[in-house]
């Protein structure tokens, strides 16, 4: 029997998602953002989600649309402002959605730490700023650092360029961003890939996310391009 993590149906890919789940969403801006998986999550209908991502959505597609459907109770991110980030801003201004702002590098490292089995680490980032309030401090070589804890998730939604049936992933250019570390940090990593290839075609030197970090994969040959979708006024559902 052969390992095969590829699913044909979006409903199979997302079948384990539950209300109240913590979900990491890959991407930085539109690059590497798993729009089709997010739309699948709208169809799925899970509620009270905590989203960990760099941003909080743009327009009414992808994460912006998921928030628009009121499925999200909290966003943990570094930069929740986008030119057309209307759905988050709306709910935030009405006090309907929680926000935890984390410096981008600390966000990345907290995610990586979860994947690497590191429960906490020290960083100089944010020392002396409001984002360090309430955090444990420690001096190393005469310099002050704060303790940051690992950020785990139940699910990670990942967009890749190519996958094989093991879930070995490569990304396209800066669409790599948070995807590899989120793949490590979630209990269940769910991937949309533009192309699924035979394992013989994955060069072992070029794999960015090894299959060990991936649970399920679906092929999405022509994913939506956010900029164009927003220009064209696309909304989901």
């Amino acid at each position, binding site marked *: *029997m*052969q*390992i095969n993590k590829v699913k044909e149906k979006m409903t199979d890919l997302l079948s384990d998602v539950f209300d109240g789940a913590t979900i990491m969403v890959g991407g930085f801006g539109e690059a590497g953002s798993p729009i089709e998986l997010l739309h699948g999550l709208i169809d799925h209908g899970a509620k009270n989600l905590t989203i960990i991502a760099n941003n909080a959505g743009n327009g009414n597609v992808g994460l912006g649309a998921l928030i628009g459907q009121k499925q999200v109770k909290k966003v943990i991110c570094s930069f929740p402002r986008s030119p057309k980030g209307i759905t988050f801003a709306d709910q935030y201004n009405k006090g309907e959605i929680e926000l935890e702002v984390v410096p981008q590098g600390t966000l990345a490292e907290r995610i*990586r730490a*979860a*994947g*690497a*089995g*590191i429960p906490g680490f020290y960083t100089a980032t944010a020392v002396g700023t409001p984002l360090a309030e309430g955090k444990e401090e420690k001096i190393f070589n005469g310099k002050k650092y704060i303790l940051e804890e690992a950020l785990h998730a139940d699910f990670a939604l990942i967009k890749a360029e190519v996958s*094989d*049936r*093991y879930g*070995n992933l490569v990304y396209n250019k800066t669409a790599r961003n948070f995807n590899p570390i989120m793949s*490590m940090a979630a209990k269940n990593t769910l991937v949309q890939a533009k192309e699924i290839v*035979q*394992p*013989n075609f*994955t060069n*072992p*030197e070029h*794999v960015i996310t*090894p*299959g*060990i*970090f991936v649970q399920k994969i679906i092929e999405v040959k022509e994913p939506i391009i956010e900029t164009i979708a927003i220009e064209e006024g696309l909304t989901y559902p």
Partner: protein
Amino acid sequence: MININSNNILKGWDRNTIAEKIANDLPHGAYVNLGIGMPELVSQYIKDDREIIYHSENGLLGMGPSPNENEIDYDLINAGKKPVTILPGGSFCHHADSFSMIRGGHIDYCVLGAMEISVKGDLANWSTGKGIPAVGGAMDLVAGAKNVFVMTQHLTKEGKSKLVKECSLPLTGANVVSRVYSDYAVMQITDIGFKVLQLNTNITLDYLKSVTEGNVYQ
């Protein structure tokens, strides 16, 4: 300390039989790290109904069998520094990423040898307390892998039991072993002792108890 007269040591399963028992307990799709030495035998007994992915802590996922003499690449070695191969779907990574797989709980099973295993699941397998200390990746594996299987002879050649109440040798990890596969029995480590899952037909439970410190139960 239990010390059996070496004339009274009963014969149990041979190492291939133990390896086969472990192989049958590794589920389809598992990511597995096999320790250097006896545990390496396990891969030979994986049945066709499952695919197992082998991790070698020096940055190799999807490790294959040894190469033919003329296919040796000294840049493609395993954690024991022996030439190996890589299977389709395998990948390379650096050491911090490789140990993230271990420490982060992504390795489903590791199979290791032992000098001593305590009834609490403590493991000693890296140091006799003598010679040059050398730990390698053993402490990371036992702390990080989801399931730690120990493959071992129940008694040393001198008749000393390896299954003890308290390890006398320096620990590799405390409370880390899930299951012990010895030549006499397969035993799960539980809160109340060694729970016998399978007993060698040559061995009675009374004999097993006589060669095992701590609570043994079925």
